[in-house]
C-alpha cells in the first residue's frame, strides 16, 4: 500500500511557543490511522496545518498528498482535494433539515434555484450509506448527538471524501452509538476511504486503527503498526505521558464509615413530557469516605438523577427522600441543597459549571460567596487568598488566579470547578463525568483529589461512562439502566462484563 499522505518535518511556531517541532506523519491509502496524545500535544494544530486552516507558508516542512506537494491556501482548498475534517463541536444548523444540512454551501441548484427532488434523492442515498434511518426532512435538532455525528459523516461523503479526519468523534457518544460509528468507519475503510481519527479512548483506537501515531509536546514519539506488532494500551499510554504508568489509578486506603448520604425511592418525570418517567424509584446510599460509582449507558438517566437531587435542577413531579447524616435534607432548591452539604460537579463544565469570561478567583468563590464576605460585602483580598490556596492545592497551571477561565485547558478548568465546590465545604460530592475530555496526566491528578476527599471522610458519588475508571476508583458501583438502578456491585465483584451483563439483561 502506498502513502496517501506524508507530512514531513512539520514545524509550526506561534509567538513564543513551538507548537509542532519536526512532526512526521505518514498515512497509507485505505487505512485508519489513529492520532493520540495528551491535550495540548499538538494534534489539533497538526490537523489544522493539514487542512489549510494554517495556510502553506505559515509553517515549515512539506505535505505530500496523493502524489504531489500540497500547498493549501484555506479549508476550501483542501476540501476540493478530498480532505475533510469533522470537528468535535459539530457544525450543523439545528433548525434545518438533514437534507439542508448535508448540502449547505453545496446546494443542488441550477441558477440559484434549489432542486429539492434531487437533494432528497441524494440525501437518502447518503443516509443509507451511513446507516441512518431518518427522513431527509427531519430537523437536525431532533436527532441525538450520535445521529448528528452520522449526518456529519454523510456530509463528508457528499463531498467525495478521500481523507476523512475525525476529531474525537466518540467523546460525546454513548457506548452503543460509539460502536456504531466505529463500525461505520471500518465499513468506509472497506470502500476505500482513508481516515485519521483523533481519540482519547484507547480501547477504541486499538479496535479500529491500523496504525497509531503518538504525539507528545509537539513531536512525534512513536508510530505503531497493528499489522506487524501487537498494540497495547499500556504501550500507548507510556508513549503519551513519557513515563511508565504502572498505576493509572492512585492507591487509596479504603475505609467506609457511617452512611452519609441516603436517597430512597427517588422518582422523576421528564422536564417537558410530564408523562415520561425518567427516574424510577431509585434508592442508594454513600458512606463517609466511600467512592461510589454509577455506571450506565449515556441516556440511562444518570445525569438526570444527580441533577434532580441537586436542587431539582432537572425534571418535575419529583418524589422521594434524601437523608444526609441520617437527617432528612431539604434539597428543593440549589441553595438549600448546598446548605444541606451537597455539591454537584457537572459533566458540562463550559456551559453549566464555569463563567468563562470571569477570572479563576471569581469562579472559585461563586458557590460560597458567604465565605469571602461579611454582611453582604465582599472581601476581595480574602477571595484572592482563597483562590490562591486552591490554585496550589489543585495544581491549577496558570500564571495567576486573575486569569480568565476560558484561557485554561480542559483539565485546569475542571480543577477550577472542583475548587469551587470544595470551597463550598460539602459533605457529599456528586461528580458527573469528572474526567471527560481531559488528558491522562490531569486525569491522574483528579483521581488523586478524589482520593483526598475520601480520606477527609467526604462521600463521593461518581458518574462515569468510562468503565475502567469506575472499576479503578470505586468501592461500590451501582448500575443504571433506563432510569432504574438495576444492580449493585462491590469493587471485588465488579468487572466490565458484569456491568454490561446487568445492563443488557434488564
Amino acid at each position, binding site marked *: 500500500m502506498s502513502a496517501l499522505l506524508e507530512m514531513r518535518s512539520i514545524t509550526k511556531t506561534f509567538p513564543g511557543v513551538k507548537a509542532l517541532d519536526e512532526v512526521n506523519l505518514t498515512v497509507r491509502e485505505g487505512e485508519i490511522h489513529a492520532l493520540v496524545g495528551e491535550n495540548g500535544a499538538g494534534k489539533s494544530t497538526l490537523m489544522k496545518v493539514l487542512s489549510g486552516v494554517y495556510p502553506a507558508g505559515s509553517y515549515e516542512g512539506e505535505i505530500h498528498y496523493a502524489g504531489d506537494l500540497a500547498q493549501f491556501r484555506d479549508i476550501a482548498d483542501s476540501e476540493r482535494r478530498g480532505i475533510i475534517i469533522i470537528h468535535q463541536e459539530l457544525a450543523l444548523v439545528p433548525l434545518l433539515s438533514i437534507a439542508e444540512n448535508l448540502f449547505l454551501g453545496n446546494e443542488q441548484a441550477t441558477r440559484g434555484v434549489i432542486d429539492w427532488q434531487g437533494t432528497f434523492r441524494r440525501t437518502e442515498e447518503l443516509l443509507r450509506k451511513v446507516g441512518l434511518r431518518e427522513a431527509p426532512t427531519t430537523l437536525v435538532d431532533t436527532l441525538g448527538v450520535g445521529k448528528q455525528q452520522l449526518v456529519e459523516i454523510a456530509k463528508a461523503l457528499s463531498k467525495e471524501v478521500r481523507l476523512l479526519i475525525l476529531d474525537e468523534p466518540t467523546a460525546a457518544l454513548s457506548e452503543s452509538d460509539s460502536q456504531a460509528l466505529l463500525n461505520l468507519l471500518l465499513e468506509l475503510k472497506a470502500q476505500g476511504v482513508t481516515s485519521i481519527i483523533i481519540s482519547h479512548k484507547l480501547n477504541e483506537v486499538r479496535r479500529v486503527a491500523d496504525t497509531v501515531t503518538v504525539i507528545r509536546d509537539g513531536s512525534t514519539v512513536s508510530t505503531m503498526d497493528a499489522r506487524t506488532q501487537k498494540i497495547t494500551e499500556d504501550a500507548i499510554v507510556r508513549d503519551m505521558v513519557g513515563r511508565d504508568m504502572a498505576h493509572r489509578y492512585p492507591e487509596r486506603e479504603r475505609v467506609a464509615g457511617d452512611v452519609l448520604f441516603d436517597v430512597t425511592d427517588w422518582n422523576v418525570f421528564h422536564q417537558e413530557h410530564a408523562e415520561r418517567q425518567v427516574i424510577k424509584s431509585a434508592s442508594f446510599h454513600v458512606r463517609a469516605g466511600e467512592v461510589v460509582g454509577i455506571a450506565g449507558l449515556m441516556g440511562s438517566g444518570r445525569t438526570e438523577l444527580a441533577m434532580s437531587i441537586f436542587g431539582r*435542577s432537572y425534571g418535575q413531579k419529583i418524589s422521594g427522600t434524601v437523608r444526609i447524616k441520617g437527617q432528612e435534607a431539604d434539597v428543593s432548591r440549589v441553595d438549600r441543597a448546598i446548605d444541606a452539604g451537597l455539591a454537584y460537579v457537572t459533566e458540562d463544565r463550559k456551559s*453549566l459549571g*464555569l*463563567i468563562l469570561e*470571569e477570572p479563576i478567583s471569581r469562579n472559585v468563590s461563586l458557590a460560597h460567596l*458567604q465565605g469571602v464576605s461579611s454582611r*453582604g460585602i465582599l472581601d476581595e483580598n480574602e477571595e484572592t487568598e482563597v483562590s490562591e490556596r486552591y490554585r496550589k492545592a489543585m495544581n491549577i497551571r496558570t500564571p*495567576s488566579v486573575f486569569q*480568565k477561565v476560558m484561557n485554561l485547558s480542559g483539565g485546569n478548568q475542571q480543577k477550577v470547578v472542583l475548587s469551587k465546590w470544595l470551597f463550598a465545604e460539602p459533605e457529599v460530592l456528586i461528580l458527573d463525568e469528572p474526567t471527560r475530555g481531559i488528558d491522562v496526566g490531569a486525569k491522574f491528578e483528579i483521581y488523586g483529589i478524589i482520593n483526598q476527599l475520601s480520606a477527609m471522610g467526604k462521600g463521593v458519588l461518581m458518574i462515569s461512562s468510562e468503565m475502567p475508571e469506575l472499576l479503578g476508583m470505586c468501592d461500590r458501583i451501582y448500575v443504571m439502566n433506563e432510569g432504574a438502578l438495576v444492580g449493585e456491585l462491590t469493587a471485588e465483584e465488579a468487572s466490565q462484563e458484569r456491568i454490561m451483563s446487568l445492563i443488557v439483561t434488564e
Partner: protein
Amino acid sequence: MSLADTTTTETGPKGIGEYLLGHLRTYGLLFALLAIIAFFQIMTGGTLLRPVNITNLLLQNSYIIIMALGMLIVIVSGNIDLSVGSVMGFIGALAAVMIVNMDIPFLLAIVICLVAGGLIGAAQGYWVAYWKIPSFIVTLAGMLVFRGLSLLLLEGQSVGPFPREFQALANGFVTDIFPAGIGQTLAPLFDARQVNVLALSLGVVAATAIVWSGMRNRARNRAYGIVDEPRSFFIARNVIVVGAILFIMFKLSTFRGLPNVLITMGVLTLIYAFLTERTVLGRRIYALGGNQKAAKLSGIKTERLTFLAFVNMGVLAAAAGLVFAARLNTATPKAGFALELDVIAAVFIGGASMSGGVGTIVGAVVGAFLMGVLNNGMSIMGIGIDYQQMIKGLVLLAAVIFDVYNKSKQG
C-alpha cells in the same frame, strides 16, 4: 471610585505599554471624554466649560445618568429594558396629575410615583424572570403600553406648572451652609462675585477621599502581591480625576453652587458602584449575566435576581421621570420619547457587553457624560439636529467596534 479600579487586576509588574494595551478600554474612554471636552472647549470659544454651562450640562444629563445606573444592571444581568423612556414619561404625567390636578402634597406624590415605578418594573420583570419571556419583547410591549397610558392620563395635553418645591428637585441648588462672609472674602481670590464655600469644600473632600482610598487600595494590593497599575499611571489618573473634580466644583461654586441633582446623581452613583463592585449581590448579578445556568447551579436565585433588576430599573426610571418633569416644569405626552436609546447607548459606550456579564457603573456614567458633552457642544456650535444624530450614532458604533476589536486581539 476610580475608573481603572473597576477592571480585572493582573499580577506582576509589567511594561507600561503592555499595561496600557490590557486596559485600553478603560483609559480609552477617559481619554475620549477628555479629548471631546477639549475639542468643544476650543470650538465653542470657551463656552462649554463656563459655570452656567457646566450646571446646564449636569441638569440636562441627570435623568439619563440616573436611568443608566439601572440600565447597566439590567444589561449586565443579560437583559435589556426598552420601556424606560415611556415609563419616565408616564411617571412624570402621573406626578403632574396628582400634584397639579388633584392637589396631592408633592412629597406624598413623589413616594407614590417611586412605588409606581417599582410596580411597573415588577410587572415587566415578572414575565422576564419567571416566564422566561425575552426582555426585548416584554419591554417593547411596555414601551407602547406606557406611552399610551401617559397620553390617556394627560388627555393629550401638557399639565403644569408644578409648585416651586417640586421644581427644586431638578432646578434647585443646595444652600450654602457656611456663612456668606467666608464666600465673600474668598471671592476676589477666584476673580468672581461670589463663591459657594460648600461646593468648594465638598470638592476638596471628594478629591481627598478619592486619593486616600486609591492609595489605600494600592497599598493593600501590594501587600497581596497584586500590584497592577504602574506608579506613573496611578499618579496621572489621580491627577486627572482630582483636577476634574476640583475644576468642576470651583466652576460651580462661582455660579449658583451645587445643583440638588448633582448630589442625587453623585450619591446614587456611589451607591450603585459600591453595590456592583463590592457586594455579594453585585457579584451575583455579574455571574447571572456571565452564565445563567452555571450561576443557577451554584445556588444563585437567578429568577429573583432578574426580577429585582427590573424592579430597581423601574424605581430609577420613576426617579428620572420626577426630575425630568420638575426640570421642564410641566408633563407632556412626548416626555421621554426615544430616551431609552440614549440610556442604552450610554451603557454600551461605557463598555458593557450586549451578551451580559460585563460592564461598570462608572463606565456607564462616563458614557452618559460623553454623549451629554457631545449633545451640548454640538448644540452650542449650532450644528443641526440632523448631523447631531448621525454623529452620535457613529460614536456609539465606534465605541462598540473598539470593544469587539480589543477583545478579539486579547483572544
